[in-house]
């Protein structure tokens, strides 16, 4: 018997189109039911060209103006209540199976990006011990990536998600380059990958370090903004 939807657990019949039948390939085996797939609505309309936030106009948003740099981030989903519910179960309750919801989506999103080296944001050793996985690399299926960054020891006092905007902006540099990182980063176009872009502080800390490693350009992709 087919297992149910990996997110809501309900049994469902996958929708098969005529095109799927005519393609002469194995039929698609979606992990997620139609109702859950509809909960996830990607950003399609106008967005901020700097941070990727969905908004009414395609002009630089106020938060990015305050940063005053030319960093570019792309985001797949708006960080709404459905995404929050997903991240809550996946990251904070540690439901590793839920990575399968995002794997195909992220595969398509990464195919749209232009880059040479993919660098996921690392998790602290302490987080790794309690959560048991890195929530970002778990979304990758067979895309090659370089773990060029590591979290400095004893910098992570409490989770970013529990801080206010001001506290987050004041945060210290949490990352450092991995020992052999300069070799893989030299003159490369690097794409950083993270789960949620909130203030942009984390991703900019990471970008700083990647530039120090000799990268040519650094951009980023996040699941949500």
């Amino acid at each position: 018997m087919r297992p149910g939807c990996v997110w809501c657990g309900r049994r469902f019949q996958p929708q098969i189109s005529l095109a799927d039948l005519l393609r002469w390939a194995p039929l698609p085996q979606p992990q997620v039911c139609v109702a859950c797939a509809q909960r996830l609505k990607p950003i399609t309309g106008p967005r901020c060209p700097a941070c990727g936030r969905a908004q009414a106009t395609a002009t630089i948003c106020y938060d990015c103006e305050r940063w005053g740099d030319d960093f570019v981030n792309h985001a797949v989903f708006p960080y709404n209540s459905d995404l929050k519910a997903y991240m809550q179960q996946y990251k904070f309750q540690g439901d590793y199976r839920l990575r399968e919801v995002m794997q195909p989506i992220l595969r398509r999103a990464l195919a749209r990006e232009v880059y040479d080296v993919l660098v996921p944001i690392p998790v602290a050793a302490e987080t790794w011990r309690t959560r048991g996985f890195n929530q970002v690399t778990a979304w990758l299926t067979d895309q090659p990536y370089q773990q060029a960054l590591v979290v400095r020891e004893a910098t992570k006092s409490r989770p970013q998600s529990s801080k206010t905007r001001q506290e987050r902006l004041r945060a210290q540099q949490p990352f450092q380059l991995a020992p052999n990182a300069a070799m893989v980063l030299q003159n490369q176009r690097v794409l950083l990958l993270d789960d949620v872009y909130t203030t942009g502080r984390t991703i900019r800390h990471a970008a700083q370090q990647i530039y120090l490693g000799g990268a040519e350009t650094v951009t980023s992709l996040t699941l949500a903004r």
Partner: protein
Amino acid sequence: MGDATLWFGRRLPVPGPATQPGKPALVAHHQQWRCQRCQQVVPPGDELPEHVPYCRQCLNLGRLTAHTKLYTITEPNRFSRVVDGGLTWQGHLSDHQQRAAQELLQRVRHQESQLLWAVTGAGKTEIVYPALAWALAQGWRVAWASPRVDVCLELAPRLARDFAAIPQAVLYGGQPVPYAYRQLTICTTHQLLRFEHAFDLVIVDEVDAFPLAMNPLLLGAIDRAQKPQGCRLLLTATPDRQLQRLVAHHQLAVTYLPLRYHGYLLPPLTVQLAWRWREQLTRGKLPAALMRRVRRYHHQQQCFLLFVPHVADLAPVVQVLRRLGLTDGTTVHAQDPDRQAKVQRMRDGDLTYLVTTTILERGVTFPNVMVLILGGDDPVFSTAALVQIAGRVGRHRDHPRGDVVSYCQSQTLTVRRAQRMIVQLNRRGRQLGGRP
């Protein structure tokens, strides 16, 4: 981790003072992993990197992996004795209620598990009070569990008032106060998963309600939370067929109370055929008989509830009613943020009707309503649901009668069974002197 009482009769994934050695949370059994908290098999593939299995069934209570250990302290029943069981309720039981209450008490004394099958509006909660007071006076630890959080939230203040001398804890997902060790625990059945051999008496309110009915995870939770020598008391107005079979085979003791507290019989369920009502609805029409009845209620200023099978049916139905000139009503469904407020406005008389789904089938009391069911033959209306819905009518002493009309496309087995259950209960009720 100072307070050892947190581990009394519970299983927690952190060690505490004086806890017994931890037991693995997931145990391999016939090449399958089984979670020791919810007793469910972990399907292959539910694992962390490096093939560490984890249980997704009870993930909401905190993740358990094959590396986790569960710690417990055997329930010591460390409570100060309250001689009379702390019952401060001043009310009065009718003769029938009194007889049922004594029956319950006798069986609880003998630690016998039992079912109280009392019609909707019989005053089940109060009937349990004497038995509960006796159990508490013995120093028993008692859980009052229900599959529905609404029931727990409604019950908690009543029990706090009626058993003022007994320390109580209320547990449900997202509760604002942390867990505390108390003699009387009011909780959702999910919360029982955290307990092990803790309770001498488990009272399960609305046993047949979703999601408990036929749910092996929650049924197992009740088994584990109860002490091996403990007993349980199941309360319902509409036992499912499995429970009825246990009763018929004398495997479960039963106390019937087929009469409401005011002594009137249940209103019978009437069926009216409404051919292709859903197609009519898409054309902006309701069955003619339903429209006539609704107009009459409107004319008489009579409040009513209109049940529909699905959330998607709410908007078109209320649109038709509004067009008929019935503007002082609204819709309620499970995800409605104003659910409580709307129900309260209906109670206060601000609204004359509610169009609703099965969420209002139990646990709500309006003093004087009529009930209409559109599409009573839809599979979402189980036999139990129909009997419960019919039980919304005539709950008040001053308005003991009323209409329950189901508009169906065809007669179905579930509708017939519901009618039969009401007829049977009324037959027993008449023997006790019930008035129609």
